[in-house]
């Protein structure tokens, strides 16, 4: 019995040593936490196609290491599940890095785990302002909401639109939009005609649209989460004919553009990605996306573009591990602090101190070109500072 035990221990030890020795050749695993089912499943699809598009151009090796992606579905905003999945990936699957995170509550709850396991995590989309401060291992490659909305307020005042209306969905991101716009717009001398928080259970948005129409504002800042809700809201706006002679600005609507009809012409939106951006990198991204997925390709959106840039950052983190015996998380995060690169969204950067994204913001308008509805850039604001960073304050 004791002899059998000793043999067993020896075998185990040998296996362990063997495993350790071979770890240098093992692929580095990146865990992607996203929604592939449920009400926001479209975000997961865009993330995944962005990631795979990046890999179709840059390969599945970063530096001298093979990269293995592990996709995990948490089926919709689910902080408890996000935490469990990150923990599971870090401990059992030995994922060294993380990416994904669509809605903010999931990133918030994952913060404590990535801090504990020292796993650098690249936040692809979650836009709540305080997220990056939750863990020293968080890096964000999407703007926070203030970075998107403040340029709209400034553009409005600059172009003489001094009377505004705010209509946002009644949830935390909507409140952030409302506060950011109101703060900047009033500071610049604008006048607010009204502010509405629209319940998330709204089916028919006509009443809210009617309130906007009767206030007759020069500019209306709106925000409703993308998907069915946004489609309903925008349909209500367009069928009331409000878009024809008034400026309505929303946040990134590209995912829903195919569902629009001509009544959506002249709808404005602000986003950190503009499909129409005439740069070589953007062209490469759009072509690779189409080449990789053919008919199944999603439209190039801020989600797929962010995932694409996210892979650029993750690959750089892995490249920083060259010559290191074990994964060095601090070195990985340091390697991308202050990193600036050209991606589909133009020349973007990660702030040296705050690890926040430094995006370009594009205010776009829907126009009909060659019989197709497209977003056309009307205003570009480069290198938008994070209003929360010490320098911007």
């Amino acid at each position, binding site marked *: 019995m004791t002899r059998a035990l000793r043999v067993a221990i020896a075998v185990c030890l040998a296996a362990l040593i063997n495993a350790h020795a071979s770890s240098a050749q093992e692929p580095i695993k990146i865990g992607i936490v996203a929604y592939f089912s449920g009400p926001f499943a479209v975000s997961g699809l865009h993330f995944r196609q962005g990631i795979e598009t990046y890999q179709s151009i840059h390969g599945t090796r970063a530096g001298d290491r093979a990269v293995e992606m592990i996709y995990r579905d948490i089926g919709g905003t689910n902080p408890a599940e996000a935490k469990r999945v990150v923990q599971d990936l870090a401990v059992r699957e030995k994922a060294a890095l993380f990416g994904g995170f669509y809605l903010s509550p999931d990133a918030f709850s994952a913060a404590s785990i990535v801090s504990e396991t020292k796993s650098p995590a690249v936040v692809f989309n979650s836009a709540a302002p305080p997220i990056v401060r939750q863990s020293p291992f968080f890096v964000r490659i999407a703007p926070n909401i203030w970075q998107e909305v403040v340029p709209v307020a400034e553009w409005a005042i600059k172009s003489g639109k001094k009377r505004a209306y705010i209509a946002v969905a009644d949830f935390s991101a909507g409140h952030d939009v409302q506060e950011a716009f109101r703060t900047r717009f009033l500071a610049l001398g604008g006048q607010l005609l009204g502010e509405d928080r629209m319940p998330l*259970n709204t089916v028919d948005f006509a009443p809210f649209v*009617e309130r906007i129409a009767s206030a007759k504002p020069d500019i209306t800042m709106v925000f409703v989460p993308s998907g*069915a809700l946004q489609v309903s809201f925008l349909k209500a706006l367009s069928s009331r004919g409000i878009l024809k002679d008034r400026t309505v600005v929303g946040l990134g609507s590209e995912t829903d553009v195919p569902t629009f009809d001509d009544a959506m012409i002249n709808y404005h939106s602000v986003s950190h990605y503009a499909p129409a951006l005439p740069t070589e990198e953007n062209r490469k991204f759009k072509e690779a996306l189409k080449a990789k997925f053919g008919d199944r390709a999603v439209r190039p959106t801020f989600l797929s573009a962010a995932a694409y840039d996210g892979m650029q950052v993750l690959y750089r983190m892995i490249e920083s591990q060259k010559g290191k015996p074990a994964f060095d998380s601090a070195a990985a995060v340091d390697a991308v602090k202050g990193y600036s690169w050209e991606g589909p969204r133009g020349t973007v950067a990660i702030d040296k101190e705050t690890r926040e994204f430094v995006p370009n913001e594009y205010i776009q308008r829907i126009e009909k070109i060659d019989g197709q509805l497209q977003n056309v850039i009307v205003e570009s604001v480069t290198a938008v500072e994070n209003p929360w960073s010490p320098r911007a304050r």
Partner: protein
Amino acid sequence: MQQFLSGATFIALYGISYGVVLFTISIGLVLTLGLMRVVNLAHLAFAAFGGYLAVSLTNDYGLSLGVSVPAAVLAVAIFSIVVERLFYVHLYGAGELNQVLMTIGLIFLSVATINMLFGPDVLPARLAPALAKTVEISGYPIQMYRLFVTVVGAILLFLLWMIFDWTSFGARLRAAVDNATMAQAIGIDVKRLFSMAFALGSGLAALGGAVGYAILPLEPMYPFKYLPLVLVVVVLSGFGNIKASAGVAVFVGVVDTACRFLFPASAAFVIYSLLIGLVLWRDRGRPASVR
């Protein structure tokens, strides 16, 4: 006064048309629940199938709505007979809990199926140019589509009323509902009758989904998303009462529209408070003679 009047016009126009959309997607469930006593929570799955089918036929094969909607309604009605024979027959006479459990399971199944077949996006659906036009009614711009839906709802109500009160099918159905054993004894094929009633309910749902898509966008979560609204209408109209359900749906539409227009901050729950209030009142406040 001027402002009050124009507000009232808006609420009436938009509230009624919204209510009619609710009526078209609820009426099928009012029927099946009332006649067959099956709490079919998966009712909206049939609406979603109908909507998806009709819009896909229009988008992919260029059929006009006049062709694709009836085709979708017919297809869903036939499909529902299969589903009824396979699954729902086991629920007749089963406890409510079993019914709820199974039909909720069916919703999950249908959500996953739609996601798999059509993808997670909202289904791109454009209105025909004639419906997208805007007309003015007493100074208010309103889309033709909303008027069209209202007319469809009115025709539907009239047809159903005719079927139930004037045809032999309606008479047999009412007999079977009141006393199935007796109806069978006098030679009515109750099993077949229920299949037909179920197909009618599902077909009506499909019609609602296909006609209402511009107000209720088609997406995989459709069968869950609008369920609370449909249940409000069903609960308030009582068992199988078609005329009451039309009234209730329009009432819900108008109240909801008015609240969101006048008190947007509290709009999210007013309709549910109303529901609770009405259910309590109806239960206790019935005249003694009825009790």
